[in-house]
């Protein structure tokens, strides 16, 4: 019971960290960004490479991985996403999916398609009411809560954050105030990409690293974004933990159905509340 709860919170935390970027991209730019999964996968690979090649520890490698995706996300934003502003959403879906295809194939080219296992970086575990729980899971939950608090501060207190929130509401009105909207959207995009990279880094020790790890997670994150209300920052937080719990409870009874149950919930939500987007 407690392990199910802990697993649900862990998955929910990681889903939140990854989904926030998708939600920001959708809310500000009206773009469904499949390339998000590429950043997530690539960060996990960079983490492993820097751990093996440079021989530095997990936490330094994690910082390297998150920093390394910044140039990549800038390139994607500048040359693909920015050219799709205000156009049909179908083209955005196809173009970002094409970026994902290119990236995944490049990863297979460089690292090969064989899954790379990674051991728990902390290794220790503690016991809670007689159940052994890895400390690492606890750290993930803590990090996701810290990020939630940090983002609340960022969007509520800083000028840049407030501009991005205003962009979620009304892009034209923001532009008419003389603010260079594209610049701030690029900041939001990069922030989202960094968080996706962090999610990939944190999730890597729990699952094996493989080139297609992004696809499955991306689908679930889309479900999170839709259930939480597209472009809603707090809604994403609630939906991520709710769906994380759905996954862990389903997985307790019937393992393979865990991912699918998320889509059932998504379908139910869309029946009750269809989204015009």
């Amino acid at each position, binding site marked *: 019971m407690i392990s199910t709860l802990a697993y649900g919170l862990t998955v929910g935390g990681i889903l939140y960290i990854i989904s926030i970027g998708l939600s920001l991209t959708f809310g500000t730019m009206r773009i469904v960004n499949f390339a998000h999964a590429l950043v997530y996968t690539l960060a996990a690979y960079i983490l492993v490479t820097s751990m093996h090649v440079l021989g530095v520890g997990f936490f330094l490698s994690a910082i390297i991985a998150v920093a390394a995706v910044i140039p990549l996300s800038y390139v994607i934003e500048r040359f693909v996403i920015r050219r799709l502003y205000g156009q049909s959403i179908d083209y955005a879906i196809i173009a970002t999916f094409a970026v994902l295809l290119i990236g995944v194939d490049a990863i297979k080219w460089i690292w090969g398609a064989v899954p790379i296992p990674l051991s728990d970086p902390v290794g220790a575990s503690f016991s809670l009411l007689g159940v052994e729980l890895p400390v690492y899971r606890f750290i993930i939950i803590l990090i996701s809560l810290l990020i939630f608090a940090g983002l609340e501060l960022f969007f509520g207190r800083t000028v840049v954050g407030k501009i991005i929130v205003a962009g979620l509401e009304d892009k034209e009105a923001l532009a008419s105030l003389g603010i260079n909207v594209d610049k701030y959207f690029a900041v939001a995009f990069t922030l989202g990409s960094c968080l996706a990279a962090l999610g990939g880094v944190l999730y890597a020790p729990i699952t094996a690293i493989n080139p297609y790890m992004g696809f499955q997670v991306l689908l679930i994150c889309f479900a999170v974004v839709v259930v939480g209300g597209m472009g809603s920052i707090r809604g994403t937080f609630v939906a991520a933990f709710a769906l994380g719990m759905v996954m862990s409870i389903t997985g307790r009874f019937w393992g393979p*159905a865990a991912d699918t149950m998320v889509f*059932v919930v998504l379908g139910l939500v*869309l029946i009750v509340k269809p989204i015009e987007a």
Partner: protein
Amino acid sequence: MLNATLKILQKFDLLVIAVLFLLLAPIISMDRSIDFMIFCIFVLAYDLLYGYMGRLSFGHMLYLGVGAYAFALSGEYLAANVFLALLIAVGSGAATGLIVGPIVVRTTGACFALINLALNQLGYFLVLVAFSRWTGGEDGMSASFKRVGIFNFSNHTIVFCFTFACMLLVVFLVRRLTNSLLGILLRGIKENETRVKFLGYDTFVIKMAAFILSTTLSAFAGALFIINYSYVTTSFIDPLRSVEVIFACLIGGAGSVYGALAGGVGYKLISNYLPNYIQRWEMFLGVVLLLLVFKFRSGVWGYVAAFVKRCDRPAEETKSHPEVSR
């Protein structure tokens, strides 16, 4: 001179398509051309939603897979009659459209794409894990049928003739449909749904009709694939393969019957022959997709149509519906 030729070509387009496909068969072996023609049916079904109604579905493999599995399963457990199984496959495609349609067609844009993807994932899971006792899970299942009259489907010439006739029938049907009132209304919905509603049409019914038609045709294509391969695996319902049909639609040029055919053949040619020369095949696909989205949105057929229009300009007054007659 050119005008006259084009007019004649337009009049007998079904015949031209038939001749072109018959010419294709000896060039690229008969087995391949069967595959090409079935894929063209699938692209036509997809184009009805994407090109005409303007709804991008990211999980159309579901409807293909429903047809494929319904066909194989009814052959295994119900009857060995191939036509009964085809009928069941088509019926289950229509039933799937009828069941999921009310949820799906209410959404637009990103939501439409994503909910189709989610449903496809659900179907994939059902086939791969939940019903693996009957579907064979990852190993798939074989489907064999006894001969009915002259239709001995283990003979590839018969399969070729059958799929050829089916494809021409589907082309004819889709062309008739898209030139009818329903087709015009679908284009209207693509441009501006509110205005179509304002004209007094019930857009929900129109969208449902198009959606069910698309799922039915996709299921039909799925069943034909199984006739050709005589086995079914989860790759027929794999959501990751949904991008193939989008790609085919974009190459050919969305929103035109000829474009769909050109795209279907073009995609299959690329995917059949290029991997022999280029190792990084997915990367190539991605680059071409990016190019298509940024530079060549109207696809192959878009350029041909623009060329024809330029040649046609002196005679433009005589043509009554230049847009609709595509």
